[in-house]
């Protein structure tokens, strides 16, 4: 078990030459099996997720796209074990997820750092909970991974939004989770910072064979980052279509001008438009 959890050795070469999209990784495969979620709304049952079936292979980078309210966050909550599904089940590798277990950490949109802890203590929090012998040292390593080792002793409020999100990423990675869930992690950032953060994320991810589930409203961002894009149907939420992104890695912003990129983009826009119109028409009536 320990063996499976410790990081896979990554040959140096894979950093620059891992052009195969679905990289081989031995952990972090997600199996979502007929998951549905119902909420009570004014005493009435309200179906937020229709049965969702989804398999994510270990080490993949998958984005969820869909109109607001289609259940992306709800699905993430089920995967992380924060929310018990009404029916169905989730497995990460061979472990059924029934409560929050440190198999997947979440990076939220913003303000998720502990404001009373210095940056270093925020990152050390996870390792400390899991009995890491040297949480501070681990935290330092991960802070330098996101280029913020010089800011270790500041409080989160003293950092810019982009830096706070980098700390949040470092904190989420510091327990070596097989799965990283990101819920609109760059949604609150300005366009320039966002672009830089995307490149940074790809660099970090290239070295961590972590499965990433990335929720966003930004179609370009989703295509640029992902191996696959899951477009969600709304009311109730379910998987509408899964689109492959066959663009080799490493990727640079230049790929946004490529023909494949625009083709995928048009397809995604069409799909989301369909869903958004559905909500629009149903509220019009």
């Amino acid at each position, binding site marked *: *078990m*320990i063996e499976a*959890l*410790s*990081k896979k*050795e*990554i040959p*140096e070469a894979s*950093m*620059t030459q891992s052009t195969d999209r679905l990289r081989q990784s031995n952990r972090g495969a997600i199996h979502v099996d007929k998951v549905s979620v119902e909420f009570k709304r004014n005493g009435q049952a309200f179906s937020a997720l229709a049965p969702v079936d989804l398999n994510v292979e270990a080490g993949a980078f998958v984005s969820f796209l869909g109109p607001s309210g289609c259940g992306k966050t709800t699905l993430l909550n089920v995967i*992380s074990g*924060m929310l018990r599904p009404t029916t169905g089940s989730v497995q990460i590798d*061979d*472990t059924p997820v029934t*409560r*929050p*277990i*440190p198999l997947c*950490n*979440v990076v*939220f949109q913003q*303000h*998720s750092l*502990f*404001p*009373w*802890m210095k940056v270093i203590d925020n990152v050390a*929090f*996870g390792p400390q*909970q*899991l009995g*890491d*012998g*040297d949480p501070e*040292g*681990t935290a330092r*390593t*991960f802070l*330098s*991974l996101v*280029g913020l080792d010089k*800011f270790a002793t*500041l*409080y989160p*409020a*003293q*950092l*810019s939004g982009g830096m706070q999100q980098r700390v949040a990423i470092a*904190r989420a990675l510091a*327990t*070596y989770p097989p799965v990283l869930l990101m819920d609109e992690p760059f949604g609150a950032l300005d366009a320039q910072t966002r672009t*830089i953060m995307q*490149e*940074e994320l790809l*660099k*970090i991810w290239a*070295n961590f064979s972590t499965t990433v589930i990335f929720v966003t409203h930004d179609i370009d961002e989703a295509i640029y980052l992902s191996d696959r894009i899951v477009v969600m149907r709304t009311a109730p939420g379910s998987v509408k279509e899964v689109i492959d992104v066959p663009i080799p890695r*490493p990727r*640079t*912003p230049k790929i946004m001008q490529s023909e494949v990129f625009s083709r995928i983009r048009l397809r995604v826009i069409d799909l989301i438009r369909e869903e958004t119109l559905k909500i629009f028409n149903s509220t019009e009536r």
Partner: protein
Amino acid sequence: MLTVHPRLLEPDDPVERTPVDRTQADRTQAERIAAAALPGTATDTTAPASPPEPVVVAAPLPARQGLGARLLAALPGMLSAALSLGLFVAFWYFATKYKLDFYIRFNNIPSPGEVWQNAVILSDSVRFYENMAISMRRILFGFGIATVLGIALGLLIGQYRPVRALLFPVFEVLRPIPAIAWVPMAIMLWPSNETSIVFITFLGSFFPILLNTIHGVNSVDPVLVRAARCLGASESALLRQVILPASLPHIFTGLAIGMGVAWVSLIAAEMISGQYGIGYFTWEAYSLIEYADIAIGMIVIGVLGLACSGAIRLVGNALMPWLASQRGAEK
């Protein structure tokens, strides 16, 4: 609403990580990864340009000014404060000198001069200092116990639904009863006068502390709780390392209010049932027709109360250093 979850990592949990087995291998690898991902390293050639050197957004501290400049800046405030106090004392002086009598009667009110004379005499009296010390001790015990119990119960009631269901109704019924109303009951309940006065002081401060702690727990950002649980926090770690610090600002609001009410309750209790204490001293001065001593008692009570509130603010600032940087960031 997030409710209580079982402990995250059972001993037999398959995902439990053993640090001994893990850290060494992981550490070296993580370090290599970190080095590789850092801008400007050799392995990094194909990666896009690294982000510019990040900039600290909020300057943590304003530039330090010289002492003289700071005194000068504070001068207008100090002058207007002196004027305000001077006017008050002047009114007091003239009202007692001419024995104003317009519904409010200044006939028996001691003048500032008399008060000063008595204060000089009292400053040599051991009894007087004893009274002060006794009141302070009662505050220390009453307020101290209220702090410990109020915060502990507040955290539990705020965080755990069953505890709330069990305890909160009782507190809701008892809360509207002012501490002073407890005096006769307290005298019967407790073996000595001293313990009943401490009890009254405790009661006065307990409810503000309890309610503000509960409020603090309820207003903890659920995102922080989620983040902590995902990172593997056990139930007790969550309470100690997340819920408690996140509620501290509200808790300190409760402590400040509680300290005020503690003094109100203490003085009233000392006046009614008391032996010794600064409230007792003040009331006794009235019985003994030592009117100047009444004013001295009042002034001392005010100063002690102020000092206690100040101490709470200081402790609060020391325990919550992050608030200063937050204020700086939000401007």
